[in-house]
Every structure is written in C-alpha cells, then in structure tokens.
C-alpha cells in the first residue's frame, strides 16, 4: 500500500474541476436552503442546465464561450422560474418533490435519443472546450507543485473556477448582510411573520431561488469546462452529494459550503483510494475491490444521516442559526 500516493491523490482532489463545481453548487444551495429555507432537491438539474446550456451554445450555435456561459446561466434562471411558480406558495416538501422531478425530467430529456444531434444522448457532449482553451493566457506545458501538477489548460479551468468561487462567496456575503438577506432569513424562520410585515414572500423566495440557481449552474459550467458533459452524471444522487457537502460545512454559513464541498471530495477520494488498498493487503477480507468502492457510497449515506441527526448546523454553523425550521 502506497500511503504517499493515497495522500497525494486526496490532496490533488482539492483543485479538481469536479470539486470546484461542487463548491459552487453548494454555495448556491446554501442560498436556497441555508438562508432562504427552500428545499431544492434539483441541484443536479441546475448543474445540468448550466453545463448543457454552455456546451450546446458552443456546439450547436457556435457562440464564443463567455456568451455560452451566460446562456447557461440564463437557462438556469428560466428553470428556476418554471419550478418556483407552481411550488413557492406551497409547503416546503412540495418544492422538494417538484425540483427532484424537474431535475429528472431534464436528465431524461438530455438522455433521450430523440434529440441526439443536439444533446449527444447517452454519449453526452465533448469537444466544446476548444474556444475556452484558446483563450488560455498561461504558458503551455505541465507545471505545478507536488500533487497539484496540471496541464496548462487544466490550470486555466482551475483559475477561472477559483475566481468564480470568489465572486460567488463575495456575492452571497454581501447579499446576506444586506436588508434583502435579512428578509430572506426571516422567511426561513417564519414566513407568516415576514408576510405580515408587508413583504412579498413569494417574490423574495423566487429571487432567492434564481440567485442560488445561477450559482449552481455556474458550478455546472465550471465542471463542463474541465470535463465532458454526460447525462449520467446529473442523477439524483449528485443532488444528494451536494446536500451532504453543504450540510457537512454548515448550511447557513458563507464559507461552510466551500469547506464542505472540498472536504466531501477529499474524504471521498481518500476512501476510494484507501479502501481498495486495504482490500489488497487483506485488511478487509470480506470485500472485493469493487465492493469497497460501493462501501464509499454507503459511508457517504451514513455520514449524511449522522450529520443531520447529530450536527445539523455543520462544521462552521452555529446552533443559534436554525436551518431546519419546518
């Protein structure tokens, strides 16, 4: 068992495009759930619409990548409106069911062979990053330090991703200390009380859904800049992983989602490197290497349960800021 290699793989995960995408998705979800109390179970759908909006704009319509990214974000706004209008007047779990259903509808639409020329069906889309890579100002070649040695193009994704994360964190921080943020948090705690103060609860919830949705879609776009787009990624499990990441860090905090998503991927990378290694040296005699990979997800599920039961405020959250109100 090569322990150094395992540590290296784990550390390398910090800057992987998937991690950066999850960080953004978790930040967006913190706006939805952590601050506004909206049970968005369609995180994967928002990420998918961002990624596909980006990729399809480039491949089918031949747009430059910054415009394509904007279209991905705009598509997420439309998606948020479609989901919010029927459900935001209803009790929270209706939004949960509708968002999870809408995300699945999207995935099936991207998966069906009917639209293969546009969506690539089960093969997904690839080869749309050329324009993005052409805009790369970094020196070519492979460089970096220790576990963080990447190709120039990968560095470009990482830099754009980290800048986007910084903007998102700043945006959420500024929004949440503004009067708007106070209303949003008030809605989370007591919708009726905020309504009786003359605030339009529905409009505020809708705004929160849109803002969070844009940030989640940005996560999808950053992921798409680094890897190909495939419908099998955007399953409901992905939504649950983002939830796990968010609750791990702390739902109603600014840096909680960042910490949570990075930790989530590090622990996942660590376990999926460590467990097969333990199997191969005979420490887990009941498991095959494939089964040990599934054990990782069993542990993720168990971790989600334990988190919600014993530390619902997450690592960075405070017990005073209630997130699970209803």
């Amino acid at each position, binding site marked *: 068992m090569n322990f150094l290699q395992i540590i290296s793989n784990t550390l390398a995960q910090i800057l992987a495009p998937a991690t950066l995408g999850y960080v953004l998705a978790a930040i967006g979800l913190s706006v939805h759930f952590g601050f506004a109390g909206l049970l968005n179970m369609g995180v994967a759908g928002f990420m998918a619409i961002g990624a596909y909006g980006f990729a399809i704009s480039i491949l089918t319509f031949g747009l430059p990548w910054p415009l394509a990214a904007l279209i991905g974000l705009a598509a997420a706004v439309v998606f948020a409106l479609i989901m919010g209008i029927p459900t935001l007047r209803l009790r929270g*779990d*209706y939004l949960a069911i509708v968002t999870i259903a809408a995300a699945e509808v999207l995935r099936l639409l991207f998966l069906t062979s009917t639209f293969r020329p546009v969506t690539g069906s089960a093969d997904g889309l690839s080869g749309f990053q050329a324009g993005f890579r052409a805009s790369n100002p970094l020196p070519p070649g492979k460089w970096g330090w220790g576990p963080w040695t990447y190709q120039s193009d990968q560095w470009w994704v990482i830099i754009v991703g980290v800048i986007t994360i910084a903007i998102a964190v700043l945006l959420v921080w500024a929004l949440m200390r503004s009067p708007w943020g106070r209303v949003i948090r008030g809605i989370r705690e007591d919708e009726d009380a905020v309504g009786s103060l003359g605030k339009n609860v529905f409009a505020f919830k809708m705004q929160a859904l849109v803002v969070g949705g844009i940030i989640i879609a940005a996560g999808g776009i950053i992921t798409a800049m680094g890897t190909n787009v495939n419908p099998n990624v955007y399953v409901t499990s992905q939504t*649950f992983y983002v939830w796990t990441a968010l609750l791990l860090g702390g739902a109603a905090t600014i840096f909680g989602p960042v910490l949570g998503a990075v930790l989530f991927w590090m622990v996942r990378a660590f376990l999926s490197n460590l467990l097969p290694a333990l199997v191969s040296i005979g420490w887990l005699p*009941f*498991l095959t290497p494939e089964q040990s990979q*599934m054990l990782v997800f069993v542990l993720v599920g168990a971790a989600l349960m334990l988190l*919600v*039961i014993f530390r619902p405020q997450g690592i960075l959250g405070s017990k005073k800021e209630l997130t699970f109100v209803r």
Partner: protein
Amino acid sequence: MAHARTAPVPRLHRRVVAALAFLAAAAAGVGILAGPAGSSWAATSADYPYTLKGNVRAAGESVPDATVRVTGQDEEGAAFEEEATTDKNGAWSVGVPTKDGTWTIELVESSLPSGVAVPDGFSFTQEATFGATSTVTRNFTLGAAERQTVGFWDQFLSRAVNGLNFGLMLALAAIGLSLVFGTTGLSNFAHGEMVTFGALMALLFTTGFGLSIWVAIPIAVIASAGLGLAMDAGLWRPLRRKGLGTVQLMIVSIGLSLALRYVYQMFVGGRTEQLPGAVAEVIPGLGPIRLTVTDLISMGVSIVVIVAFAWWLMRTRIGRATRAVSDNPSLAAASGIDVDGVVRVVWVVAAALAGLSGVLWAYFRPGIKWDMGTSILLLIFAAVTLGGLGTAFGALVGSIIVGLLVELSTLWIPSDLKYVGALVVLIVILLFRPQGILGRRERIG
C-alpha cells in the same frame, strides 16, 4: 460476504443454461412437429439425411408463410433447388442430399408480409456449410414491423391494460408512502429501497435457497414487514423522540436511501437478475392485448391486496386509529390512541406493501437490479402527490393515473421519455390543484 455473493452465481448459470437448452429443444421440437404439416418439403426432408433449418422473425415475432429457397449442388454436381414455407412459428426446414459444398439460403423478399422492416445490413441470402452435425441452422431476423399493422385503438387498449398493471403495482408502493407521510409527516426517500428489498428477498429465497416462487413471495413480504418494523424501532422512533423536524427526517431518509442502495449493490453487483417465471407465454385470444400469465397474476394479487388493505383501513379498529392519527396526531393521542403503536403498524404495513410491489416490479420491468426501486421512486412520489399527500385512496387513484399516463404517453412520445410525461403532469397539477385529487385544502399551506 464474498461467499454469500458468489454462491448463487454458478447455480444461476446452470439454470440459465438449462433454460436455454430447453428453449433450443422446444424450438427443435416445434420444427419437427411442424414438419409433416408443411406440404412443400415433407417428402424431401424425409428422403434426405441432412437438414438446413431456421426461423424467420421480425421484431421478435414469428413470420409465417415466408418462402425460403435453398440452392446448391447434390453429390453428382447437379444443381439442387428446394423451397420451403415458414410455418406459424416462423420455422422452416429443408432436406438436402449431401453435406458437402456450400448451400445458399435465400429468403424470398416478395413473400414477406407487408409492414416488415428490413434493418440496415440485412442480407436476404445466407450461406451454410455442414460441419460434424447433420443439421445447420440459419435464422433470418428482420427489424420492427411498421406500426401501420396495428391500429391505433388496438395499441391504445394494449397499452392501457399494461398501464393499469403498472399502476396497480405502483399503488402498492404509493399507499405505504402516503400512509407513512400521513402519520409521521416524513417524505420517505428510502421507500424505493424498501421496494428493492422485497424483490431482493424474493431473489434470495428462489435463486439462492431454491424455494418455489409461491413460497418465496410470502417470505419476501414478511421479511419486508420485518425491515419496516426494524426501521421504525431502530431509526425513526428514536429520531421522533429526539424531536427532529420533518425536513431533517427527510434528509435522513435520503442518507438511508443512499446507504441501502449501495449495500444492495455490494451484494448483487450491477447485474440484472431474473425471478423464476419472468418469461411467460402470452395468453392467446385477447386480440390486441398482450398479457402473460404473470401479468394476470400480478394484477390479481395487486387488486386482492388493495381491497384487503382498504377493508383494513376502513373497517378494523387499528385502521380507524391509523386514519385518526393521519388526521391529527395530537387529537388522536388525547383520545387514547397509542400513536407510537399506530405508527409502528403503519411502517410494517407500508414496508410489506412496498416489498410486494418490489416483487411485482421485478416481473414488470423485468429483472432485479440494485437501483430498481430508486428508478420508480419519483413515479411513486408523483402518484402520491397527484392523489393528495397523506391520503391512502388518493395514492391509489394517483398511481393508476400515473401508470396509465406512463404507458399511454408512449403512443405519442418516444418510449425513453415515458417517465417525463408523468413528472410533467405532477408539476402541472400543482399549479391548478396543489392538494391533489383527493387531498384537502388545509394540508398544503
């Protein structure tokens, strides 16, 4: 664990091999039996020791009355030509005088019925040479018959019956989910795993322990009920005592769903396994409706169980108590109903129904896979929401609507989008009647 996993596999293989051998023998038998009935080649096949045979199929259906022409040279080098017509099973057979040389088999295109599509790369002629055996099989497999051969209403009827079957199966799962929601307020995302559990137990007791499916199904249902009891006693009741909110409980159920799903995958892997009797004959004489005996039994079981459940809910003491708790837990507790006891019974009933629906779902799909329950979880939710969250009979109505919708929508949309219709309807219905069909207004606020 590794042993438990690998042990049933060879057994399964043997079964598959045996089944294939049986099928091959049956096909050969059909060919032999059909032989004397066919007029064109009866004399020749009796005369010659070597046989070329095969069948003609289009989209999985036998093609009768198609002409197959065999040409070649007999032992003197003279040209030999013989024609055969496929029987009602699509089988043909031609006797030839020698096993030397190459035989050309041509499917006469003009003899095919209209509406048979020829797939890309399909060749109407095949060549055959004899090896050690005295028979050689060459099959012609054509593409899907054009839909023009089946009328719209015939298809409609066929899909509707299929949808009803699916809906009834869905109802078994949805009623449980709705009951749990009504009594505890929990949107249980792990319900799909309870469905899978029933199917896996049936698989364990049939393929694993070699029991008959009729013994295995009740055992699977009882095991599922046990799972429900264990989940309530080990997880949900302590969490209710701890005072977790419904949202927290919902996310716990999501975690449980993930964990259980991958535990299943650790045991059964990514394969699809079949329960015994998954391949059954279509009952003849129903016109356009394609129903197998399994389908019919499945529908019968669903209806009987749903009626029994309705009787239980409406007539028995515990059923009334369940409805009371569903209505208002505090009031029910104040009037002397043991709420915890009722909730325990509800979990047992819900899990048993989910387990049974899992077995039926395994036959409907067909096949057992680790994520089979998850794949219909959203349809179950759609059914429950459509009927009205927390109402048992609403779940039944919602399920049948969803079942019909899923199957009938394939008349207009591609079948890989058939779940989309049901989910879109779920979203649309919330716009106009958020309380669902049988729900009451005050529950939604």
